[in-house]
């Protein structure tokens, strides 16, 4: 496993996202599912239960893929990294509309962009000799 950057990254990021998702529920006890002001994880990262669920799903997908095999980790990293970036880019052009889910003005967006870059970098740039497997 230590030979594959994709499995390493997927496992580590998956564990962190899963932990953040679980931890989030401790801070959002009385918060509505899509409340517009949620709890603050560690006093910095604002979340509502919708975010917790999203974090849990992303974390679970990455962790399972990271623990499975290289091609699963590579595909999951690429997909999640690309979706993160595309959602951000779409947000640039939906300024001021209800469909804009872009959020850039708090500390955690730095982590979102870092996640996107790292996941995409690993998915596209590493483990090139791995062919996609058909089960």
């Amino acid at each position, binding site marked *: 496993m230590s030979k594959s950057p994709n499995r390493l990254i997927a496992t580590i990021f998956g564990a962190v996202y899963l932990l953040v998702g679980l931890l989030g529920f401790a801070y959002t006890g009385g918060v509505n599912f899509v409340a517009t002001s949620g709890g603050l994880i560690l006093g910095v990262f604002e979340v509502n239960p*919708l975010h917790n669920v999203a974090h849990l799903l992303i974390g679970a997908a990455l962790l399972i893929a990271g623990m499975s095999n290289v091609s699963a980790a590579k595909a999951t990293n690429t997909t999640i990294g690309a979706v993160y970036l595309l959602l951000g880019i779409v947000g640039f052009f939906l300024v001021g509309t209800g469909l*804009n889910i872009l959020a850039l003005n708090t500390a955690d967006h730095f*982590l979102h962009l870092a996640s996107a870059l*790292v996941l995409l970098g690993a998915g596209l740039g590493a483990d090139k000799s791995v062919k996609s497997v058909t089960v």
Partner: protein
Amino acid sequence: MAPAIRLLLAFSALGAGLIHLAVGAGAPFPLWVLLVGFGIAELGWAVATLYTGRIVLPRLTLGGSLVPVAVWAATATLGSGLGVSAQATGLPLFPMFIASLFNIFLAVTLAVLARNAANSNRRPLSSDKPAGWKFATALVLGGVIFSGLTTPALAATNAGLYAVPHGSHSIPALEFLESDSHADH
């Protein structure tokens, strides 16, 4: 060439591309076309470079990466020298500065790589295999550094001004249902 260097070049192109798209989205028409074009080209180049494992079109990229810097310099000169207001040129200083930094890093690194390749017998801009912890560390460090520069630049664009804080956004349809159910109280 070390895969880590290729990775950093791709990250700098991604950073510049994102900033150009964000600035372009709020810029007046002719600049909108130029900046969105630069952004798409930069993102495409970064993905192609990561995917193929080699620097795509190195000579074209070397020159091309400096074009956005020249465009910014031209609009800044127009703004200060010819009395065109900043609103008319619509290019915010800080994001364009960071994007230009990425573009210049890209051009300088490509120039150095091309020179090194010319001085040695190795195949120019060839790729080695990325593997293990070394690549993963470069990946995480690069991700942190480049997103650390890109995020504040994006926040300073027009799109950033209208962005909602994390934890404050939701799915519009769900929000509608929530407000509907509260109407009875």
